[in-house]
């Protein structure tokens, strides 16, 4: 039981540095900065003004032929667009039959919170009576996963997991479980998030936002930068993928979770070490099997030193030379979409044998004594990688991903 292998056969990306996985991948390797002055709301009263927004992309046209694709909120649009890309990439449109159980497993931090923020503005400036029904309908998280299923007619298990900044990893992990348990034949998994005033407000208030760039692992790092986007992968069982001649990007060997259970916002070395240990145990591997870690790497003082200490706890001396890079240096923190987008970076790294860099890196921090693949991508030949994600509330999840060898 539960011995089946689960693989990634399609990828869809909506990000601040590229739309579609190829553009995203090229931008990652080139070390592209996706954080820019915030457009969505007026930041003049805020201490910082930079965000990782998706500019110059309107998914509406791309998804307009799908049923139920009208009047979707921004996060749901991102999710549906990324799903369409992933479905086309997996070449599944043609090979799916009505009998196939296609599930959806999506993560988010704030759901379609721009809708709630419109409600909040109307409430404050006109009164609660004058808030509008359309926003109440589109705001809640479950309308995101329902939108994907309705647009594509998917009847399989439809699950929404809002475990904040680790949600994408939770969702991909649970999708893997659903396939192993035969609860679905294909699962659309990942995360989606629209840019949020509430998030920007909150992180600014706790002084966790960098005023210019996100510098993970740098001695002078000044914080994270809130962002947005969607990352979707198509997961299926290896034998099914093989039978239909699908291209396989990577294998999901397993995942683990842990909970700090100590503090809502301060990460714990034990909790973070436990999640990597649990993930390796679930995948049946040892620390020495791992050749790369795609970090949570938010660029805050607390996260980066905690993550590095935990890596040292698990990997010992190998931590000195372990490549550990952070996509957030480029995208900022796409919240519920972050770990999905970063898992995709990790999958593509394994597929193409190239590590994505941590950009904006200048000064070594003795508390972050890892090899963060500074500023330039480079080749690597390891077979197995870990994708870390840690969330508010101490909800941690790590994926173990592997190059596909037949």
């Amino acid at each position, binding site marked *: 039981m539960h011995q089946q292998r689960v693989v990634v056969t399609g990828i869809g990306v909506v990000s601040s540095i590229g739309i579609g996985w190829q553009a995203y991948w090229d931008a990652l390797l080139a070390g592209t900065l996706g954080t820019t002055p915030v457009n969505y709301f007026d930041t003049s009263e805020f201490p910082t003004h930079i965000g990782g927004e998706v500019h110059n992309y309107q998914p509406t046209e791309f998804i307009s032929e799908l049923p139920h694709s009208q009047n979707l909120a921004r996060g749901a649009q991102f999710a549906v667009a990324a799903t369409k890309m992933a479905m086309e990439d997996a070449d599944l449109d043609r090979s799916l039959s009505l009998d196939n159980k296609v599930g959806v497993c999506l993560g988010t931090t704030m759901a379609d919170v721009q809708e709630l923020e419109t409600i909040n503005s109307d409430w404050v400036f006109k009164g609660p009576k004058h808030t509008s029904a359309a926003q*109440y309908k589109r705001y809640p998280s479950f309308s995101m996963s329902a939108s994907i299923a309705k647009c594509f007619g998917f009847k399989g298990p439809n699950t929404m997991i809002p475990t904040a900044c680790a949600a994408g990893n939770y969702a991909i992990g649970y999708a893997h479980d659903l396939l192993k348990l035969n609860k679905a034949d294909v699962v659309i998994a990942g995360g989606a998030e629209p840019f949020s005033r509430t998030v920007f407000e909150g992180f600014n208030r706790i002084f966790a936002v960098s005023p210019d760039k996100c510098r993970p692992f740098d001695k002078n790092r000044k914080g994270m930068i809130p962002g947005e986007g969607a990352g979707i992968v198509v997961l299926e069982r290896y034998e099914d993928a093989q039978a239909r001649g699908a291209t396989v990007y990577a294998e999901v060997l397993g995942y683990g979770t*842990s909970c700090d259970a100590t503090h*809502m916002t301060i990460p714990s070395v034990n909790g973070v070490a436990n999640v990597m240990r649990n993930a390796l145990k679930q995948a049946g591997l040892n620390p020495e099997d791992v050749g790369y870690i795609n970090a949570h790497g938010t660029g805050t003082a607390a996260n980066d030193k905690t993550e590095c200490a935990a890596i040292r706890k698990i990997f010992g001396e190998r931590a000195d030379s372990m490549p550990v890079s952070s996509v957030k240096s480029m995208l900022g923190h796409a919240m519920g979409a972050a770990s999905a987008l970063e898992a995709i970076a990790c999958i593509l790294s394994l597929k193409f044998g190239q590590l994505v860099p941590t950009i904006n890196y200048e000064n070594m921090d003795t508390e972050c004594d890892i090899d963060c693949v500074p500023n330039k991508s480079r080749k690597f030949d390891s077979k197995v990688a870990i994708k870390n994600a840690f969330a508010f509330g101490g909800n941690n999840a790590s994926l173990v991903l592997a190059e596909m060898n037949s």
Partner: protein
Amino acid sequence: MDDNQRIVITGVGVVAPNGIGKEAFWENCAKGVSGIKPITLFDTSDYRCHYAGEVSDFDPVPYLGKKGLRNLDRTTLLSLVAAKLAIEDSGIAITDENRDEIGVVLGSTMGSVKSISDFDMEGLREGPRYVNPAKFPNTVINSPASQVAIRFGLQGLNSTISTGFNASHDAVGYAMNMLKLGRAQTLLVGGVEELCLQTFLGFYKLGLMARGTFTDPVKDPFMAPHKGTVLGEGAALFALETYEGAKQRGAHIYAEILGYGQQFDPECDDRYNPQATGLMGAIEEAFADANLKPEDIDSVSLSANGVKGCAESEEYALEQVFGYRAKELTRTNIRKLIGESFSAGGAFQMAQSLVASKTEPITTAATSVQASANFTANSLVLGSGPLGHMTAIILKQG
């Protein structure tokens, strides 16, 4: 089936509009005591609906003590009290040896939407530099589940499931899968919902709520036949573990969860599908999972909440699945007693289903549906939502 693949309920914690603690809740369910009453948490004078299932005078201090409660919102406090009751009821001692094997799976679709909205509105009113940083952690949807872990030192799997009306049904399904895969030994599983003006306005403006003058909100909460629903709130959590684990520690077993089925119905376009294709699919999956047939089911816990099309779709599914037996099934509907508590609804359905054979069947409503019933053997717990999420759970009394 292997004992480590059988999932059982070994603890119950309920904070309901008609009673806090399993005894009060069950007794009031049995007597048909309604928790639906005039709303006191916010002013409803601008709207044509004034009743809800409110947890009156909710005071967490007797359960949790005074310490550390100041910055917690109502959603979190309801969750903490239900968790505390469930842990105590299960008899599980949380120690350094087992805390990383004990976790939480909470059904919650919006977390505390009041916390999220209030935080942003404070920024709009006072300026972004004046929001209260201590309230910021309350704005993530996974905050209530995380606070349960922090309060009780639970370092195992911690997750939140947010599928709307089915969030707590689906939390149960998720937890079953986690336990079967050995990802945790014990999970506190259920759902929570807080009554607040934000949720009230959402339901009200989307036309889901019964409006106008009630003849009797207690006897006829949905203004039959189907004018709309009445909201509820609260939290219900269960301790779930494998039969093997429960046996080893000699735990009292309330029920076994025999099966779980989950489907999405793309035909639902913000209204229930009269053909109930997805709901029937979920029921069939639950039967297959439990290795049972329709004739093995004795009672059904309904998801009907007064919203137009919900009861009709559900009854159609039951007729199709059970044929002539559909009329013989005992039906219960907890929402008639406590209102539609959204993400906590499924957990309350299950909590009511555990009333077991202790109680006499009674009829409170002016319809044929009983608010509480004399349960025997296997019950089918249904969940259905207008966006298309469909769930069925089969419980067997221990």
